[in-house]
């Protein structure tokens, strides 16, 4: 009797455990589209770094970037910077969406944005402008 119950339990455990394990997100998941977006962001980063360092742009708490001080940017360069920020934010939004999709959970996009927002700020060099959890902008 006990053996039968044990076998039944084992069978159901083996069926359900892998299904439950899939509920954990793999943020490091890679796909061709994710690789393309990461490369695009990495290519743009050296251009954006001086703008971060001059506090012209900053990191938002939801994993995006934002123009902080337009006056710090030369008027002839302003349009270019706006385009760079727009492009970067599009890539970032796509990255979070694609990671959520690759995990089979598009509904995790908001959680991913928040998590990446925290980690971007954590990994950013000292002195960059960051938006804290209360929505206040400050120098890291």
């Amino acid at each position, binding site marked *: *009797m006990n053996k*039968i*119950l044990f076998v*039944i*339990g084992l069978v*159901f*455990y083996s069926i*359900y455990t892998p*299904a*439950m394990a899939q*509920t*954990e*997100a*793999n*943020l*490091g998941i890679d796909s061709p589209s994710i690789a393309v977006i*990461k490369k695009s*962001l*990495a290519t743009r*980063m*050296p251009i954006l770094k001086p703008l971060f360092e001059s506090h012209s742009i900053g990191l938002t708490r939801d994993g995006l970037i934002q123009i902080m001080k337009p006056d710090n940017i030369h008027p002839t360069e302003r349009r270019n910077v706006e385009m760079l920020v727009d492009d970067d934010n599009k890539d970032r939004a796509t*990255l979070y969406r694609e990671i959520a999709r690759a995990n089979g959970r598009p509904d*995790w996009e908001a*959680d991913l944005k928040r*998590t*990446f927002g*925290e*980690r*971007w700020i*954590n*990994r950013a060099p000292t002195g960059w402008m960051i938006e804290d959890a209360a929505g206040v902008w400050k120098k890291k």
Partner: protein
Amino acid sequence: MKQKILIGACCFVSAMTLAGCASDVIIFYPKADAAKAADTVIDDIFGIAPPQKNVTPANVNQETVKK
């Protein structure tokens, strides 16, 4: 006896299903693992190489000698 086994199996399946549903809704992922994985993605974008293991001055010198 068979009826008891059947009831037991049904209870087990129900419990596991509920646990699965609950984990889908409540648990997004283990926070520490998520942070580590996100850091790897961010470091790739920042162009920060992951730390190399077992690279000592002795190993580097041997490589140089071989070349």
